[in-house]
């Protein structure tokens, strides 16, 4: 308590001393508010305003009455979780390989994980078309065996997974690097097998980072447009996802419909954002709690209590 008050007392004048003059502060704050307002707040609010401009009933009918829109929503809700699941598997495997083993090509692997961030999604989509499309390398073979990838669900999943590849791995690598292999080695020496080590030691230690990666990955997967646009062939009622449906409705001058789907997509994004904020608060609280308990519990000193 005393220490806290002391800290506040010394911090206060220092802060005042460090502050910039009003002449600089006010324009900077105003610039921040204006930019966020014009670029983010007004457009987002407008999406909802436009969507609901003809009342909630119309809004609802726009979403559920159109079979193609219903299918697009369903398709997004199928593609996104599958991509997320694939990325969880890949992310854990990649983070494990990169942080627990030293092998040649390790740096290259770390760099390659970032590649999807650098490549334009349209190009990514195109790459899959060139590989699996009818004119692509594997296209004829796949057609002969009755497998459809391009213009079908597998293509959507492939493209979405590619674009979101870095999210989980990039969250996990620094966390697993910081944790180090010691606890896993300890578990091994205590007789645990690989599976037990993974579920009992590794997963509990990385669960928050993993969840964070999943949330970001999911947000990106649901919103993906470019890569999916190329591989889907945007066939209404078959390969249109929500973002593609928004664009198509807009092109057809069906503004209320377009905005209705857009508002739903935005709501999903806002939900993701809320989940992210909640998670950040929770992990920060957990760390703070750990530190507080650690210092507040009286430490019965070591051998002092032994007879």
């Amino acid at each position: 308590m005393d220490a806290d008050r002391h800290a506040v007392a010394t911090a206060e004048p220092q802060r005042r001393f460090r502050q910039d003059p009003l002449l600089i502060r006010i324009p900077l704050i105003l610039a921040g508010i204006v930019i966020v307002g014009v670029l983010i707040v007004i457009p987002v609010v407008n999406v909802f305003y436009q969507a609901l401009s003809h009342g909630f009933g119309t809004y609802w009918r726009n979403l559920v009455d159109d079979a193609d829109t219903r299918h697009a929503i369903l398709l997004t809700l199928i593609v996104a979780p599958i991509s997320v699941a694939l990325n969880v598997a890949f992310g854990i495997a990649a983070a494990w390989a990169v942080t627990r083993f030293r092998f040649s090509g390790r740096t290259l692997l770390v760099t390659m994980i970032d590649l999807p961030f650098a490549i334009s999604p349209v190009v990514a989509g195109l790459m899959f078309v060139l590989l699996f499309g009818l004119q692509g390398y594997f296209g004829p073979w796949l057609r002969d065996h009755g497998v459809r990838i391009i213009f079908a669900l597998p293509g959507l999943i492939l493209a979405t997974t590619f674009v979101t590849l870095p999210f989980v791995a990039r969250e996990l690598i620094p966390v697993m690097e910081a944790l180090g292999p010691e606890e896993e080695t300890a578990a091994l020496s205590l007789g645990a097998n690989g599976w037990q080590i993974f579920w009992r030691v590794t997963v509990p230690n990385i669960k928050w980072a993993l969840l964070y990666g999943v949330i970001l990955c999911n947000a990106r997967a649901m919103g993906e447009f470019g890569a999916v646009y190329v591989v889907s062939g945007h066939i209404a009622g078959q390969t249109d996802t929500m973002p593609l449906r928004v664009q198509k409705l807009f092109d057809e001058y069906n503004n209320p419909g377009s905005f209705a789907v857009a508002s739903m997509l935005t709501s999903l994004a806002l939900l993701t954002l809320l989940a992210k904020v909640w998670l950040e608060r929770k992990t920060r609280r957990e760390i703070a709690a750990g530190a507080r308990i650690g210092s507040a519990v009286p430490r019965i000193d070591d051998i002092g209590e032994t007879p």
Partner: protein
Amino acid sequence: MSIAVKNVIKRFGNFVALDDVNLDVSGGSLLALLGPSGSGKTTLLRIIAGLEGADRGTVHYHDEDVTKRSPRDRNVGFVFQHYALFRHMTVFENVAFGLRVRRAPKDKIESRVRELLQLVRLEGFGGRYPPQLSGGQRQRVALARALAVEPAVLLLDEPFGALDAKVRQQLRQWLRRFHDEIKVTTIFVTHDQEEAFEVADRVVVMNNGRIEQHGTPQEVFDHPANPFVMDFLGNVNVFQGRLQNGKMLLGGIEMAYPDYPHGESRAATAYIRPHELDIDRSPADASSLRAKVLQINPNGSVAKVRLESENSHLELNVEINLDRYAELGLRPGDLVHVAPRRFRVFFPEDYAI
């Protein structure tokens, strides 16, 4: 259970961590692997545990070759330098881990963990998490966790390295008593010679991936096998001189050395510990050296005196007991006589370092 390490070689890239190491540990003993950092002691411990594989050579547990066995199947308890406690588990769950992964029955786990927490004197701490414990408590949780699976061998990597001096002192004595109680073959790694000598039955001194000496603390301290061991085991005064006709000649003095009766003169190095030198006001015999007192540091039970010999300007470190110090009434600048009570001789060409 006895442990034997035979002709083990381990390289990390170009660095030779272990160079043809042989070691026998008798069952039930408490052995210290002592050496400076980089001497290979931790690597040897990890190879014994199976956490590291040897490039060549074998590890035997009681006549059984376990070289190819994974650490899971070796039944060792390993205590890591930084404890490596599972931070998301309570103390109870940490200790229970080894039993849980072996699918031991619940009631057996319960009673075994209680028993172990009592053994390491942490009853009532079962519900805490590792960050809520002090360093010494964490150390003992790590020990209880390693013991839960009833290991045939207990291996500890720098067990007291991360603790402060007072707790370290207490835990050393505790480990000694603890080992006397449970009698499981124990090997621990340390770079602190005092720790090794205080706790262990036997000490293995390592350097540059090789074992320099293996013996009881007394043997190693009184009869160091070579200059490295001599030097590593604490402060020592080093004199370059010559041997001839049963005498060691150092600067202006000569000392009897009957082990070398030959007439041919040979270069030799004498090693004398600070407590093996006496200080006197008057010259004792031909073996005393005139020296000037530079600095005096009465430190606990002894006074540490730093001197400079008058003709050869060698620096000498001497430890005398406080009674003797009071009797002499030494002051910096005094001219006194220093005489060795005993010394050891090594020939430099035998130990090219």
